[in-house]
């Protein structure tokens, strides 16, 4: 066995141990450790990615000594490795972008706790990506939830705690449903390992028995994960959680946490239930409807919002709607588009959060648009970065958003009944995106006389470098989509 | 005629235009005398060129192509000659009249500039050999004559000018609609007497062509002051300086008439129109115009406006003649073109002379004017008789032919109703023109005044015009021979 195949397991454990160690370190030490760990995880994932892409196969990694039907397994191919790499990169960038804010907003004696949470989050995300065991997935879902909650409430601001509370409640509802779904699935099939469940389910479907319980199970799991990933109409907790937490948390929450759940959902669709079975169930239509409803409603809420952070949060609701719409199309192309959008949205949304904080910083920490007028002149890097993010969200060619839009549209063309609604909603939602993002962009470029100080790029090198990395990432996704989609297709083929 | 000599056709068109543009550009002359010499010479030289052209045989000239299917093409045919002669004659006479009249006005150079430009454009209109060339000059005619209307720059004049512009373009574009179709549907757009369309083709597209014809009649009818698009005429003509209103009323309205003749008799062909519903509508409209124009003139107190209403009525005589589509009516119409041009210019110049000398504009102020300005009023009287149609003036002959033509035609009702209205209108004409003469010469016992000086630059044109009116009335054959050659080929 190649040594590189150990890396996924190592990276999960590494992150987890780092979390444990961090709890006894000082803030600075924890920060360094965390950076190191995230980078290392990234590198390891890269190695796995290169390896898996080259061989084009999927590998199973047995945890512990129990063999297949009973024991715990990791399973990874190109898609998982790439996703892990991507998560690590985004996490690193988000943390770097918000580093100054972390220092400012978090009490010094709690800083190391923040990194504990981050490490834990990373570990759970990796586990969600790699695991092949449903119950393990559930456990890490909960760990994910807890660490995310910690990330939200770390600033100990009243609003944050309240948001954390709401987030917890919704999350727990979701994970409750998810858990009961798993249990019924276990009841139906007698397995917890995904591949085995799949075999049984195929048998069940073939036999034609238990069709109702199966449908209910699928529905329970999907709804559970949908709540957790803030699909419209379960998004009520989201704006507060994203809007008031410290910026790195917001960026990570929006681009990683919800994406982790979505990735798990993909895994369920492909590996557990089987894509053809899933695509034939009614659930998919429901997802489609809620997806397009989310695209519109999220944007509408964003238009009404007067707080830049909350506006971006609502935009997340819309973007998650895109992803679910892609699922709802029930085709391979739709899935590819959704996965691409996971990447593109993660890259863009964290960029937006980070740059938005750069803008609010130079506006006396006010987040309403009135105060943000002309902020782009006071912090040029943030202004440019926000503009790039906004353009990408709107779907301007050369940025990542355009490619995902293109992929979605092309995918919609294959699906005859859903074609027109999907396309028209896509167009309408673009228009709505234009309205609120471009409004903001123009607002920040409208000069005004204020007493707020300007920030020079030199004073905040890390921030600027992070933004540049984000922009490059975005443009890279936008311009070199060909290899990325190829990778996604390859990954999906060996995914099940 | 040699092909290369044909460019002579362009000379009378371009020469006045260039001279006029030069004047507009130059703006100021050091001495008024120089200006007058310049204008006078230009007018006479143009006249000579026109004469040279008229003497020669038929000339054809394709100047250039707008696009491949749109040549700007000039041709000199009988109808063009008639109109060109008329225009030249009137323009020179009115021009000399202006020399005296314009003494009192400001911005003279500009006036003469546009006067000359309009002259050239009108000659271009007369020499046009095809539809597109005619339309080109038709538009330019509106634009070039606009400054004449606007000349005084009073608010009234501005409003009138804009009204003139609006109505004219409205008409031009209505006509343009038809023109587009004619160009597209026809094999050629060159004017050919009797029409260019085969009757079978016309029958096939009858509805379309009826619509087109209707639009063309309405469109060009605007320029000719046909009801219901006559309102601009009575606003625009009176506000211009005297000689300008003369030529506007006498000549430029005939631009519309010329265009109608060209389109109906030289492209679509008169045979298509006769007997159709469009013809009836047209006849009704002309008759309404004739009657209404006279009535309005009758109750109008301002002399120039009264004359303008009279124009509305009289031009519709011509249109009536055209609408009947009958040979002698057509001849009458053409004769009336000539007669009315001379008479109306004469009348307007008289009115101008009176205003110039006395400043009186309203009819009731003209009591005893015959004592002050006898020559002017005599000319006025002769012209009035002509317009009413009393022998031996030109108006009598033309109306005679019109009436005969109408009676000869086989259109039910209108064959007798037409002449009747002509006669009623003639009575009304007498009613609104002659009181000036009567009050002018017989102001009553106690009226005392001294005779005003009448400068020969003013009286000479008047006398010539009045004399021509009489001359044509006495020897109508001089003009009629020309007209017969036209009608011979057209119908």
């Amino acid at each position, binding site marked *: 066995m190649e040594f590189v195949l150990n890396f996924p397991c190592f990276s999960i454990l590494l992150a987890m141990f780092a979390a444990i160690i961090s709890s006894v370190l000082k803030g600075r030490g924890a920060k360094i450790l965390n950076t190191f760990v995230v980078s290392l995880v990234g590198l390891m994932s890269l190695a796995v990615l290169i390896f898996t892409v080259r061989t084009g196969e999927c590998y199973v990694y047995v945890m512990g000594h129990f063999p297949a039907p*009973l024991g715990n397994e990791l399973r990874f191919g190109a898609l998982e490795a790439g996703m892990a790499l991507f998560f690590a990169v985004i996490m690193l960038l988000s943390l770097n972008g918000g580093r100054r804010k972390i220092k400012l907003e978090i009490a010094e004696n709690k800083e190391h706790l923040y990194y504990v949470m981050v490490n834990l989050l990373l570990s759970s995300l990796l586990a969600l990506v790699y695991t092949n065991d449903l*119950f393990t997935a*559930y*456990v890490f879902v*909960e760990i994910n*939830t*807890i660490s995310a*909650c910690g990330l939200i*409430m770390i600033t*100990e601001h*009243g*609003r944050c*705690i*309240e948001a*954390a*509370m*709401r987030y*917890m*409640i919704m999350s*727990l*509802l979701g994970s*409750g*449903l998810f*858990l*009961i779904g798993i*249990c019924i699935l*276990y*009841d139906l099939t007698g397995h*917890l390992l995904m591949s085995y469940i799949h075999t049984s389910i195929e048998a069940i479907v073939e036999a034609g028995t238990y069709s109702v319980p199966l449908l209910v199970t699928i529905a329970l799991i999907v709804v559970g994960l949908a709540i957790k990933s803030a699909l419209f109409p379960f998004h009520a907790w989201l704006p507060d959680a994203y809007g008031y937490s410290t910026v790195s948390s917001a960026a990570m929450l929006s681009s990683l946490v919800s994406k982790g759940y979505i990735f798990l959902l993909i895994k369920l669709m492909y590996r557990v239930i089987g894509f053809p079975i899933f695509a034939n169930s009614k659930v998919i239509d429901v997802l489609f409807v809620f997806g397009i409803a989310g695209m519109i409603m999220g944007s509408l809420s964003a238009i009404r919002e007067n707080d830049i952070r909350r506006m971006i949060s609502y935009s997340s609701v819309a973007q998650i709607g895109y992803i679910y719409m892609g699922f709802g199309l029930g085709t391979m192309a739709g899935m590819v588009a959704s996965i691409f959008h996971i990447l593109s949205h993660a890259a863009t949304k964290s960029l937006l959060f980070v740059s938005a904080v750069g803008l609010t910083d130079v506006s006396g920490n006010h987040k309403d648009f009135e105060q943000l007028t002309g902020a782009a002149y006071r912090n040029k890097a943030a202004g440019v970065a926000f503009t790039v993010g906004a353009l990408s969200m709107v779907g301007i060619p050369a940025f990542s958003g355009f490619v995902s839009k293109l992929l979605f549209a092309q995918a919609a063309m294959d699906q005859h009944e859903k074609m027109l609604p999907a396309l028209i909603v896509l167009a309408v939602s673009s228009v709505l995106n234009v309205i609120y993002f471009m409004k903001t962009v123009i607002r920040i470029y409208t000069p005004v006389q204020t007493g707020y100080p300007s920030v020079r790029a030199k004073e905040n090198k890390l921030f600027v470098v992070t933004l540049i990395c984000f922009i490059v990432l975005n443009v890279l996704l936008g311009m070199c989509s060909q290899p990325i989609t190829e990778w996604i297709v390859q990954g999906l083929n060996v995914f099940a | 005629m040699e092909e290369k000599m044909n460019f002579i056709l362009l000379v009378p068109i371009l020469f006045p235009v260039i001279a006029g543009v030069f004047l507009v550009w130059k703006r100021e002359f050091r001495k008024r005398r120089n200006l007058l010499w310049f204008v006078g010479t230009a007018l006479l030289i143009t006249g000579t060129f026109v004469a040279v052209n008229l003497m020669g045989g038929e000339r054809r000239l394709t100047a250039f192509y707008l696009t491949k299917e749109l040549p700007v093409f000039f041709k000199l045919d009988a109808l063009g000659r008639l109109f060109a002669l008329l225009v030249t004659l009137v323009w020179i006479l009115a021009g000399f009249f202006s020399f005296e009249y314009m003494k009192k006005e400001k911005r003279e150079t500009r006036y003469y500039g546009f006067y000359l430009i309009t002259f050239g454009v009108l000659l271009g209109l007369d020499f046009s050999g095809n539809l597109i060339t005619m339309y080109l000059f038709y538009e330019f005619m509106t634009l070039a004559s606009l400054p004449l209307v606007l000349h005084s720059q009073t608010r009234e004049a501005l409003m009138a000018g804009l009204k003139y512009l609006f109505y004219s373009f409205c008409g031009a574009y209505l006509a343009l609609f038809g023109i587009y179709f004619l160009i597209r549907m026809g094999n050629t757009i060159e004017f050919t007497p009797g029409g260019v369309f085969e009757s079978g083709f016309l029958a096939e597209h009858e509805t379309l062509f009826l619509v087109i014809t209707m639009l063309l009649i309405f469109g060009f009818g605007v320029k000719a002051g046909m009801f219901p698009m006559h309102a601009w005429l009575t606003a625009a003509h009176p506000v211009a300086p005297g000689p300008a209103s003369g030529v506007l009323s006498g000549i430029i309205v005939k631009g519309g008439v010329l265009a109608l003749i060209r389109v109906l008799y030289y492209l679509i062909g008169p045979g298509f129109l006769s007997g159709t519903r469009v013809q009836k509508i047209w006849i009704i409209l002309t008759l309404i115009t004739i009657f209404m124009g006279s009535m309005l003139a009758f109750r109008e107190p301002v002399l120039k406006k009264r004359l303008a209403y009279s124009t509305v009525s009289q031009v519709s005589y011509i249109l009536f003649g055209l609408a009947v589509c009958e040979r002698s009516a057509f001849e009458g119409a053409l004769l009336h073109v000539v007669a009315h041009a001379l008479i109306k210019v004469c009348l307007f110049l008289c009115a101008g002379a009176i205003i110039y000398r006395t400043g009186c504009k309203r009819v009731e102020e003209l009591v005893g004017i015959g004592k002050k300005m006898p020559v002017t009023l005599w000319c006025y009287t002769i012209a009035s008789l002509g317009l009413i149609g009393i022998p031996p003036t030109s108006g009598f002959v033309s109306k005679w032919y019109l009436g005969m033509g109408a009676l000869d035609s086989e259109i039910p009702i209108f064959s007798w109703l037409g002449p009747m209205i002509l006669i009623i209108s003639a009575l009304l004409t007498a009613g609104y023109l002659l009181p000036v003469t009567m009050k002018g010469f017989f102001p009553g016992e106690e009226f005392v005044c001294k005779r005003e000086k009448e400068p020969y630059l003013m009286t000479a044109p008047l006398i010539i015009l009045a004399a021509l009116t009489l001359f044509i009335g006495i020897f109508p054959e001089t003009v009629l021979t020309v007209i017969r050659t036209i009608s011979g080929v057209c119908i």
Partner: protein
Amino acid sequence: MGNHVFANYGEVVAMLLFGIGFTNLLLQKNMIKKIIGLNIMDTAVYLFLAEKGYIEGHLAPIVVNGDLNPETYINPIPSGLVLTGIVVSVSVTALMLSLTIRLYRRYHTLDLDEITTRLKKEGR
């Protein structure tokens, strides 16, 4: 249908409990009641699992007297799952409670909606 329900009364009860817990977590205003709802929900799941794993007449899967015959014991996996689940639910409950305490200290109420209104009134 009826006898199915009766035969599987354990599962039915579990589902009812799950419903109760879910509704409480979702709809209760009082945070403590919400947490109780959460626990009911979790417990329902454990009940369900236990019911699934239990085989009539078999022993708990603890090897005491060297009997390695699988027929002797009930299915051990659900039991393992329940144990894991309990750990998870304990930690989650702890976190929720700590959050509740913090909120209560700050706002002296357990009503989440009231806290929200108050926060909005503060404008932050």
